[in-house]
């Protein structure tokens, strides 16, 4: 991967591999090339065959024939998707939920890392870190189970509401609150873990920068704002690219375990829709078409954003 970014001058300096040189390397590395075989067999079977299988989106699935022998139907299922009002509902929900998660969730780990760095006590800091990572290691089935209790009618949130004289709310079945709950619980699960990368970047900042600023009379807040934060910009931009690429992943694991019939209109996302039309309604072709739409858009997004960053910021900030 790093070869791709190598300056051209360097590439030209490398001796051109002639046929003899190539053959020599094949002989030299024959054992290692054999070693690669099992891994790539797995890749072909479990990654590339399903990619080929995605052509089902352009075919009418016949159980007896399998994917290969099912008849072609062209864009039928894409037309169906674009004429399906619910497709636009799930597309809208996916984008809205993702956008809110990004808007509110993206800054939290950065802020947390900067504040954590300000803690003087090493032991205390380690404790805080360890605890904050914990929810990342718990499955969404467990987390959803817990949150369903917490937001239930007898749960602590409603108890608080009652205490301030508010009427109880059935949060999990209320369209007004459900997305906020999704965003909030998603931040709860990921902020600590997400901060690791920023903490590492902060640890890599040259202490001389801070020392010079202190001599110049900069207080903690000033240094936070004018040293720590600017030094984090490269990492922040990489993380932003990564999250742009997954903007169509609104969080299947979370939503699938938290949503219910009452909030379907605000919570149903592409992935949950693909699951339901595919495996519950057994409409294989249609489900594959909607899924393929998502995969292709996601691919274009990742490649596109990476290209944009490359033109603006040079190779340093890109993914490859």
């Amino acid at each position, binding site marked *: 991967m790093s070869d791709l970014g190598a300056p051209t001058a360097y590439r030209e300096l490398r001796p051109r591999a002639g046929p003899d040189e190539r053959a020599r390397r094949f002989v030299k590395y024959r054992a290692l090339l054999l070693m690669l075989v099992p891994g790539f067999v797995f890749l072909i079977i479990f990654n590339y065959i399903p990619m080929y299988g995605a052509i089902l989106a352009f075919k009418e699935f016949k159980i007896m024939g399998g994917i290969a022998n099912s008849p072609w139907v062209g864009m039928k299922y894409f037309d169906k998707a674009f004429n399906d009002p619910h497709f636009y509902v799930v597309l809208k929900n996916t984008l809205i939920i993702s956008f809110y998660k990004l808007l509110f969730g993206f800054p939290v780990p950065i802020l947390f890392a900067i504040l954590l760095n300000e803690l003087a006590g090493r032991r205390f800091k380690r404790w805080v870190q360890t605890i904050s990572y914990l929810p990342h*290691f718990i499955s969404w089935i467990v987390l959803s189970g817990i949150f369903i209790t917490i937001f239930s009618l007898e749960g602590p949130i409603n108890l608080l509401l009652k205490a301030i004289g508010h009427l109880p709310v059935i949060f999990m079945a209320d369209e007004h609150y459900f997305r906020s709950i999704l965003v909030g619980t998603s931040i709860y699960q990921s902020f600590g873990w997400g901060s690791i990368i920023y903490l590492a970047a902060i640890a890599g900042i040259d202490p001389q920068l801070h020392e010079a600023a202190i001599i110049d009379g900069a207080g903690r807040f000033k240094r936070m704002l004018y040293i720590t934060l600017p030094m984090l910009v490269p990492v922040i931009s990489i993380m932003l690219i990564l999250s742009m690429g997954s903007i169509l992943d609104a969080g299947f694991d979370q939503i699938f375990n938290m949503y219910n019939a009452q909030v379907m209109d605000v919570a149903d996302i592409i992935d949950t829709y*693909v699951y339901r039309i595919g495996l519950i309604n057994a409409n294989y072709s249609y489900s594959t078409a909607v899924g393929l739409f998502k995969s292709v858009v996601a691919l274009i997004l990742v490649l596109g954003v990476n290209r944009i960053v490359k033109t603006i910021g040079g190779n340093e900030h890109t993914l490859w």
Partner: protein
Amino acid sequence: MVYRKSLTEKMIDVLLYAGMIVLMFVTLYPFWSQIVLSLEEGASAYSTGFMLYPRKLSFEAYRLAFHYTPLWTGYLNTIVRTVLGVVLILVFTALTAYPLSKKDLPLNRTCTGFLLFTMLFSGGLIPNYLLIKNLGLLNSVWSLVLPGMISAFNVLIMRNFFRSIPESLEESARVDGAGYVRIFVSLIVPLSTPVLATVALWVGVGHWNAWFDSLIYISDSRKQVLQVVLRKIVIENDTSNLNAMIQKMSTDTKYTGRQLQSTVIILSIIPMLVVYPFVQKYFVKGVMVGAIKG
């Protein structure tokens, strides 16, 4: 360089510490509330609210949960898939990563590109499902283990680690007449325990928490993994089996499926809670290694 703090900065410190303590309370409370609820004596468990400690301590819910067999078959199935998954993934990932760590390996860039493309694009739900079905792997533990065998991310982490091992070590082994296979087995693998441990833990947690594959590929309830058993009880709220068992097992009818939900939640995360504080630093290391640009 000693930096003297002014009074306002000391106050900011106090606020910072207080804020962090509140944050930790908020993070831990959801888990704590489940522990409390599971230890509460039956009758008082109806009104949940804010519970900081069990008002009447009772282990009855745990006694009941221990007799709920689906939970324990689920446990066993999860352990099997986790062990199988971790061992096989380590073997095949290392086998794939080592050749790719040689920069002058023929076809290296082609192979790496082939690997990386799987991070960018996937066939989707139905093609994957049909593949598993056609391979005859439905209702088999292999449907949970084989598809994730090679992940580009794990391979890159290992490849980068292998690259950081000094070339001179390998060269001296080659001078002594060792071939690549020998070098890999008796030099590279023993030197790579940190990265192997990191990937193993990573994969282990992934398998322990995985549920969607089991939900769609496994229909035989005796082969279902813990998370799916849990999902049935906690998310689908199907406590009929539990309630039937409670009535058979306990003369104390105050215990409800509702309370047993908390108990099974706690039972399912105990292994994680026990192991987690000790291995947490390896996970963090993994993130750091993975953060290096391939």
